[in-house]
C-alpha cells in the first residue's frame, strides 16, 4: 500500500499538465538586457499593440547566445525569430548569413536613426543603442589611493588582485576590451600588456553580469564596464559608489543591434518588434534601463544621464573587416597568454 502511494506520487509529479500555446515571438538576447534592460516594458508594449507574446531567451552573454543560435541553425532546429548582439560579433554572424534584410518601409523608425550608426556593413542588422567600454571602480575601496590613471597603470602591483574583466571569447564586453588593448598598444604590444596585468586580475568571468556582481559583492574594486555606470547610480538615486572613468581619456566604442533571423515564420511581427524598439517611447527607456545611449535622435535623455554619462575624449574602434579577418588569431593569442603568464 505504502509503495503504491509513493509510486503514485512520483507519477503525479512527472505527468503534470502543459500550458496551451498562443502566438509569440522568440527573442534571443543577452542576460543583462533581460535583468536590467527594457525587456519587460518592451514585451508589455508589444503585447498591447500587436496582441502577441514575447519570449526572451538568453544563454548568458551575447556571444554565448549567438553560439547557441548558430549551433541550432546548423542542425536546423532554432525557434528564434529575432537576435540581439554587439556589433563586434558581426564578423562571426556574417559568415553564417543569419539575418533577413530590412528597409525603412518595414521599419519606419529607421528614419530617426543617424546614417553613420546604421552603416554597420551588414544588411539586416539594426543598431538600437551604443556606448563606450571604460573602467568602473568602487569609490569606497579607493579612498586614499586613486584608481589606475591609464591602461598602463593597471600593471602597478598596488592593484594586485583588484581587476575583474570578462572573457573575450564568451563576452562582448570582454571582446571590446581586448580590441581596445589592441587599438591602444598595437598588434605587436597588446599581449605584453595582458602579461603585465596578470597579477592585477582577480578573475576573468564568462560575462559582464558575473563581473558586475563580483564588484558589487566586494570581491574586487575595479572592473571593465561601461562609461555610463556613474549615470546609472545617479539615476537610481544611489550614492555614486561605482563610478565609470575613461583611463587616459580613452574608451572603446560598443554598438548593440538586432536582426530578424532567417527562416522565421513571424517575419512581419519580428520587424514590427524592431520598429517598436526604435520608437521614441522605448528608446527613452534605453538610458534609464540599459544605461546606454539611444540611437533615436528624438529621444530625450534624463538629466542625470546627460550629466554623468561619460563620452571619452578619444574613442577607439577597429574597422569591422579587420576584426573579421584577425578575430580568431587575436583570440587564440590572447588565450595562450592569459593561461601562462
Amino acid at each position: 500500500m505504502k509503495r503504491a502511494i509513493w509510486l503514485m506520487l512520483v507519477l503525479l509529479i512527472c505527468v503534470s499538465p502543459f500550458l496551451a500555446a498562443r502566438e509569440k515571438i522568440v527573442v534571443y538576447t543577452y542576460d543583462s538586457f533581460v535583468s536590467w534592460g527594457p525587456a519587460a516594458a518592451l514585451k508589455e508594449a508589444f503585447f498591447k499593440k500587436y496582441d502577441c507574446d514575447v519570449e526572451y531567451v538568453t544563454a548568458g552573454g551575447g556571444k554565448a547566445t549567438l553560439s547557441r543560435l548558430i549551433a541550432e541553425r546548423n542542425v536546423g532546429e532554432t525557434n528564434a525569430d529575432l537576435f540581439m548582439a554587439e556589433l563586434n560579433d558581426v564578423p562571426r554572424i556574417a559568415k553564417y548569413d543569419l539575418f533577413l534584410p530590412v528597409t525603412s518601409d518595414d521599419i519606419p523608425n529607421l528614419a530617426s536613426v543617424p546614417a553613420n550608426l546604421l552603416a554597420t556593413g551588414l544588411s539586416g542588422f539594426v543598431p538600437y543603442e551604443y556606448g563606450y567600454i571604460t573602467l568602473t571602480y568602487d569609490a569606497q575601496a579607493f579612498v586614499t589611493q586613486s584608481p589606475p590613471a591609464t591602461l598602463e597603470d593597471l600593471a602597478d602591483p598596488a592593484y594586485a588582485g583588484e581587476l575583474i574583466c570578462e572573457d573575450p571569447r564568451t563576452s562582448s564586453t570582454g571582446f571590446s576590451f581586448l580590441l581596445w588593448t589592441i587599438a591602444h598598444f598595437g598588434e605587436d604590444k597588446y599581449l605584453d600588456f595582458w602579461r603585465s596585468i596578470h597579477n592585477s586580475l582577480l578573475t576573468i568571468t564568462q560575462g559582464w553580469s558575473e563581473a558586475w556582481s563580483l564588484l558589487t559583492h566586494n570581491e574586487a574594486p575595479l572592473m571593465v564596464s561601461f562609461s555610463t555606470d556613474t549615470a546609472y547610480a545617479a539615476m537610481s538615486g544611489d550614492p555614486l559608489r561605482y563610478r565609470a572613468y575613461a583611463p587616459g581619456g580613452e574608451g572603446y566604442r560598443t554598438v548593440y543591434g538586432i536582426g530578424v533571423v532567417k527562416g522565421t515564420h513571424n517575419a512581419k511581427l519580428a520587424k514590427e518588434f524592431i520598429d517598436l524598439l526604435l520608437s521614441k517611447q522605448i528608446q527613452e527607456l534605453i538610458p534609464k534601463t540599459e544605461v546606454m545611449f539611444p540611437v533615436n535622435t528624438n529621444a530625450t535623455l534624463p538629466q542625470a544621464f546627460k550629466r554623468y554619462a561619460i563620452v571619452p575624449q578619444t574613442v577607439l574602434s577597429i574597422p569591422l573587416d579587420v576584426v573579421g579577418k584577425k578575430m580568431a588569431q587575436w583570440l587564440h593569442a590572447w588565450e595562450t597568454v592569459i593561461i601562462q603568464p
Partner: protein
Amino acid sequence: MAACLGDGDHTTVTRGWYLALLALFGLLALVFYYPLALVLSMAFKGPNGWSFSAIESVITDPYYVHLILFTVKQAAYSTLLSLGIGLVGAYILARYNFPGKRTIRSLTVIPFVLPAIVVALGFILFFGNSGYLNRTLMSLFGLPHPPFRILYSLVGIVLAHAFYNAPIVMRVVGASWEGLDPSIDEAAQSLGVGRWRRFIGITLPRLMPAILSSSALVFVFTFLSFPIVLTLGGARYATIEVGIYTLVRTLLDYNHGAALILVEIVISLSFTYLYLRTEGRMAIVTQGSRRMPQRALFALPVDAGKVLIALYALLMGVFFLGPIVSIIIDSLHSAQSWGIANYAQLVSQRYSPFLGTSPLATVRTSLIIGSLATLASLLVGMTIAFFVVRAKIIGRWAIEAALMAPLAVSSVAIGFALLRGLSGPPLRLGGTLVAIIIAHAVLIYPFVVRVLRPILEGLDVQLVEAARSLGSSRLHAFLDIELPLLRRGLLVAAVFAFALSMGEMSATIILIRPGLSTIPIAVYGLLSARQFGAASAMAVVLIAVTAIAFISIDRLGGRRLNA
C-alpha cells in the same frame, strides 16, 4: 531483463547471452559508440577534408599543451591534498572508537550527493574575498583586508576538489585499515620495532592497494572535473574540460574540440586502467580473522595524539561544514533581512529570464530526467553486471572493457557526442529531454555495475541451481531468488544513480536547449548572474530533493541502507 539470463545453465554461454549482448551493443552503438565515433572523427578533419592539423595543434600549440599540463597538475595536487586529508581521517576511523562514528562514516557519501555546482557555490560564499570566513576573521581581528585571497586560483580549485574527494580516500582506505590483521604488527612490536618503522614497513605496504586505488579514482574524477573549474578558475585556470566546453559551445570550433576530447580520453583511459587493475589486486589481499584493536577517543588519558585529532576535527568541521552551512544561511538571507523571500521568489516568475523557464518547471524537469535515467541505467547496469559475473565467454575482458567505456569519457565529451550524434539521423533528438535522459543513463550505468557487481559475486549460485533442479524456470528462479537477494544492492544503486542524475551538469549544459532547465543548470544560471540568494535557495532545493529520494527509496526498500 529476462533475455539476459538465458535458458539452461547460467555459467556457460547460451543463445540467451548472445542475444542479450547483441541487444546491449546495439543500444550502446546508437547512444554511445556511434556518437562518440562521430565526434572523434571530427578530430581528423580540417577545413579542407581529412587532416591531422587539429590533433597536431592540440599536442604542439602552447595554449593546448598548457591546458593539458594544467589539467594534470591540478588533478595531481587535488589527489595529494585529498590523500593527506583522507588518510588522517582513515587512521582515526581505523584506530579509534567514538560515538557518532557510524554517522561520520555515512557522511562520507556526501561527494555522491552534493553536485559539484553546489560545492562551487558553497566555496564562493564561504571562502570568497568577502565570504563568511574572511568577513568573520576581519571583524574578529579588525583586519582591513581579507586574509584569504585564495578562491579564484589553483588553490581554490584544489581545495574544492579535496572537499569532494578526501571522503572517498577516507572511506576506501579506512575500511582496508580497519580490516588489517594486527598479528604481524604485534609480533614486530614485541621484537622492539619502533612505531614509525612498523607503520612504514608493515602497515603502509598492506594499505598500498587501497591507497593506490583511491588515488587513481580521485585523479580521474579531478582530471575530468568541470563545474568547479569553470566556476572558480575563470579564463586563466582552465582545464581540458573547460577548453572543450569553450571550443564547442562558444567558439564552435568542433575540430579542435574533438582533438582535445581524444587526448583527454587517452589520458583518462590510462588512469582508469590503473584504477581497475589496482582494485582487482586489492581483492587478493587477505584479511585476518582478527581486527585492529581500537582505542576509545573520548576517554582518559588525553595524549598528544588526541589533541591533534581534536585540532584535525575542528579544521575539518570548518572546511566541510562551512560551505554547506553558508549555502543554507545565504538562502535564508535577502536584502538585509531574514526569511524565506529567496524561496518565495523561486515560485514567482522573477528569475524565469535567466533560466528560460520557471524554477518550478526546472524541478519537475530534473525529477523526470532523474527517475527515467535511474530506471534506464538500472536496466542496462544490471544486465551488464550479470554478464560480467556469470557469463563465461572468450574475450570477456575485452567485452567488459567495451561495455564500461563511458567511465573513461568525460561528461562534457559525452554531452558533445550526443549533441552531434543525436541531432542527425538515425535518431533526431537534438537537445530534447530524451537526449538528456540518454546522456545521464550512459554516464551513470557504469556506477550501477560497480555497485551490483560485488553483490552478485557474493550471491550463492547453488541456491539458483537448487531451485532449477526442483523444477523452477530460469525466469522464476531469477524473480524469486536472485532479485530479492539483490534488492538491497539495487536500492543502493538506484539511490546513487538518482543522486548522480540530479546533480549532473556537465553533459546537460552542453545538450540542453533554451526553454528547458534542470536544477543544477538553474543554480549555475543564477550563480553566473551572481543572484546568490536565489542560487542558494535553488541549491537547498536540490539537496532536499536528493535527500527525499534517499529517504523514499529507503522506505520503499523497507530497510535501512548502509551503503
